[in-house]
């Protein structure tokens, strides 16, 4: 007598993101063990990230064999003129399509590309450790050297923040304990007017720390040390009212460019992972949350790689895209980007996280039109489309080992019914394996091409195209083998088409007790 097949459905597989920290057994099947080049789409599904559209045409000529564009900023003048400044190959450029090298002050030598650039009071300021700060007046491509001698020497800080009507800087060579601020509305006046500084030597809660970054959040000035955070209020009048509001011990920021504000939270990379510093409404202290706890070990291992490779963490870049609702943090040395979906935190407070590989961005910047731009080896790229440049990229989703809530029984997988959204012409491979193996059984299939809705395109009087607005693929794959726990994976070579895994239905035969 034939046994009844047990029907197991994994709806929206991986929509809780990657979880590599908890024991896979008994873990919610909505967690994924691998969700690479994925995002959590607007419908809560695991889908393919977008690729990038390389804008720069003269990248090899100006960037050579460097790591590419490692910093950039879009400056919009008061008259609305937009100028994109970028840095790479020890040069500073303007433009996106054609990178034009800026004119540096005479004799000025750039030895690194860890610039932090901010727009302030209709000018752009360039700060980097060990370099005299530069200024682009009203977007000029001829950069001005801020004073390095005399009575108005500008601190050569590694961090620069424009907030409260003035510039703030810190992290100077041999001085990692002082925060400086410029005179009001004068980014080039650091010794007169209302400029000033605060020595944090006696303020660090753990006695000693090194200031790494600055941020403005919830009307507080946050001074990030490596292992602690100092929360100052009254930064609008720092000379007279800057007051210590709170200190956070044990958590700091280890990567200057990891700090991003989501509007409600301030996200940054700490030695514990990516942290979220929330806004406070009633509490005295800012609520601090670890949003990367599901991938903590993997993420911190990448931090170590980055530090070991570069000697510092300035290459770690991050960006927040409100349109895409994610926070990206890239580890260029590892070629990995962690993507945190910021829509809704999970029950444990973490954010749904996926990884991006093969994209290898070296810089991010969200332009004023909310378009995400990123630095690439060959120049500036726009986060768009479903190709990395002209190349396909692979989406990988693998579930955690699943015992179908019958841990003591063998499972015989009989059939997979997949529901894929999009994926036209996308070569896809279904993987399954038993008992924690990484030697998966694979079944390849390719979805046929299909036209999807072409909204906004005028095709009047052309050949009629009959298609649904959303392409839904429902491949069915027969499977073999048995085991106590089952791991399922989908690998799809994204080919210029969206790809989202809506559902995976598994028909399995529950066998005897082991």
């Amino acid at each position: 007598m034939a046994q009844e097949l047990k029907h197991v459905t994994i709806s929206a597989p991986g929509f809780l993101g990657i979880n590599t920290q908890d024991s896979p057994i008994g873990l919610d099947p909505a967690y994924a063990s691998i969700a690479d080049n994925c995002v959590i789409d607007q419908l809560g599904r695991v889908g393919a990230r977008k690729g990038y559209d390389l804008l720069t045409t003269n990248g090899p000529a100006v960037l050579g064999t460097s790591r590419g564009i490692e910093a950039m900023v879009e400056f919009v003048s008061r008259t609305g003129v937009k100028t994109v400044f970028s840095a790479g190959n020890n040069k500073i450029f303007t433009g996106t399509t054609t990178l034009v090298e800026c004119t540096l002050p005479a004799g000025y030598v750039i030895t690194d590309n860890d610039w932090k650039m901010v727009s302030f009071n209709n000018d752009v300021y360039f700060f980097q450790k060990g370099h005299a700060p530069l200024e682009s007046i009203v977007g000029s491509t001829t950069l001005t050297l801020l004073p390095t001698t005399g009575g108005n020497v500008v601190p050569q800080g590694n961090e620069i923040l424009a907030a409260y009507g003035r510039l703030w800087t810190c992290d100077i060579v041999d001085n990692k304990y002082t925060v400086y601020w410029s005179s009001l509305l004068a980014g080039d006046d650091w010794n007169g007017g209302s400029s000033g500084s605060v020595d944090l030597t006696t303020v660090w809660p753990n006695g000693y720390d090194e200031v790494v970054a600055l941020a403005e959040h919830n009307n507080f000035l946050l001074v990030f040390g490596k292992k602690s955070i100092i929360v100052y209020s009254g930064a609008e009048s720092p000379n007279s009212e800057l007051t210590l509001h709170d200190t956070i011990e044990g958590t700091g920021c280890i990567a200057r460019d990891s700090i991003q504000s989501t509007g409600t939270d301030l996200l940054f990379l700490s030695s514990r992972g990516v942290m979220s510093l929330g806004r406070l409404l009633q509490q005295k202290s800012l609520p601090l949350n670890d949003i990367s706890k599901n991938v903590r070990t993997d993420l911190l291992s990448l931090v170590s790689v980055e530090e070991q490779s570069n000697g510092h963490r300035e290459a770690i870049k991050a960006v927040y895209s409100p349109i895409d609702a994610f926070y990206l943090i890239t580890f260029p040395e590892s070629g990995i980007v962690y993507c945190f979906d910021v829509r809704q935190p999970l029950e444990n407070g973490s954010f749904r996280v996926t990884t991006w590989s093969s994209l290898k961005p070296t810089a991010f910047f969200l332009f004023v039109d909310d378009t995400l731009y990123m630095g690439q080896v060959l120049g500036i790229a726009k986060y768009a489309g479903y190709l990395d440049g002209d190349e396909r990229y692979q989406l990988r989703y693998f579930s955690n080992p699943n015992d179908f809530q019958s841990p003591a029984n063998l499972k015989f997988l009989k059939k997979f019914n997949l529901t894929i959204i999009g994926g036209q012409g996308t070569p896809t491979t279904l993987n399954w394996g038993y008992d924690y193996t990484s030697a998966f059984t694979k079944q390849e299939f390719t979805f046929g091409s299909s036209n999807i809705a072409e909204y906004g395109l005028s095709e009047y009087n052309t050949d009629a195209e009959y298609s649904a607005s959303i392409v839904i693929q429902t491949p069915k794959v027969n499977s073999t083998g048995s085991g106590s726990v089952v791991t399922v994976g989908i690998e799809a070579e994204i080919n210029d088409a969206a790809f989202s895994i809506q559902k995976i239905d598994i028909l399995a035969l529950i066998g005897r007790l082991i």
Partner: protein
Amino acid sequence: MALNQSAFNQALTTPMQNVSPTTGFNQSAFTSALTTPVQNVSPTGFNQTTFNQAAQTGASTLSGMLGSSNTSGFDLGGFAQGLLGAGVDYYAGQQDIDAQAQFGQMSNQAAQQMGQQAVQGTSFKPFSVTTGAGTTQTDAQGGFNLGLSPEQAAMQAQLTQQAGGLFGGVTGDVGQASQDIYNQIRAIQNPEEQRDQLRLNEKLFARGRGGVSSAQYGGQGAEQFGFNQAQQEAMNQAAFQARQMALGEQQQQLALGQGLLGQAYVPQQQQLDALTAGTNIANIAGTGQRQGAQLQAELGGTGLEALLRSYESGLAGEQTQRNQLVDLLLGSGQGANAVEGLLGGSSLGGSLGAAVGVGDAPTPQWIKDLGNDAKSWLGL
């Protein structure tokens, strides 16, 4: 008649001894003293009895030797009588001249002596005034010495020295005095300022502002700037206050110095006041002395006049007696009133002429002795 010079001088001196600044004018002693010379200058000084006896004896002897004039033809008696009368008149006149000259000389001497006594009696007698502050001694030249007692002198020296010290402060360096006062004020203010600074530091570091450095506030935080500003204001105020106090102290020192200096001379002033009072009292005594001297001089003058008059009377009486004696010996009157003297007329004969050296006979020794005796009588 001879003046008892020593008694007269003694009499003149005595009343001056009776005028003393301390005992006043002894009127009775003065009167007694004045009475004494008068007694001594009385006619009794002229030994009338001895004079009469000598005159009697001589006349008897001469009469015995000459006998009666009626015994000779030559009126030798009348001649001798006339000769003797002329000699006696000459002698008597010469005696009067000599006596008056001697008397005038004695009167002059007595007047000078009285003048000297008056000068001595009215001259300034130095006196001393002794109070608790010391003794002031005047001198004959009209000067005086304010002799303070050792205690008062020491006090005066001390006060003067202290005043000098204070005056030294008055003319001292105001800047240094101000600095000293300023340091004292700051020493008072410093502890509280240090406590304020500590409280400020606690507040600053508790608020994480301990390390704030601002160009707006001169390289420091607003609180520290405010504190320093307040401190500087306090310092400025202290400096200003110190200056005022230094000037005030100089005024006080000046006043104190003046006071001390004035006090230092108070004993002298007291001495001067006492001298004034003593001078008044001395004037009282001096006035008595001068009045006594004046009275003595006046009385002395009066006595001298009385003496002169008595001498004049005595001389007049003596002249009268001499005239009577001459008349007795040689006769008097003329005509019917003529009275024959012992040596005139009949009683004076030849033998008598010879006996008295008339003619070639030598002058008998008895006439010579008689002349010498008369000379001795007259004190010549």
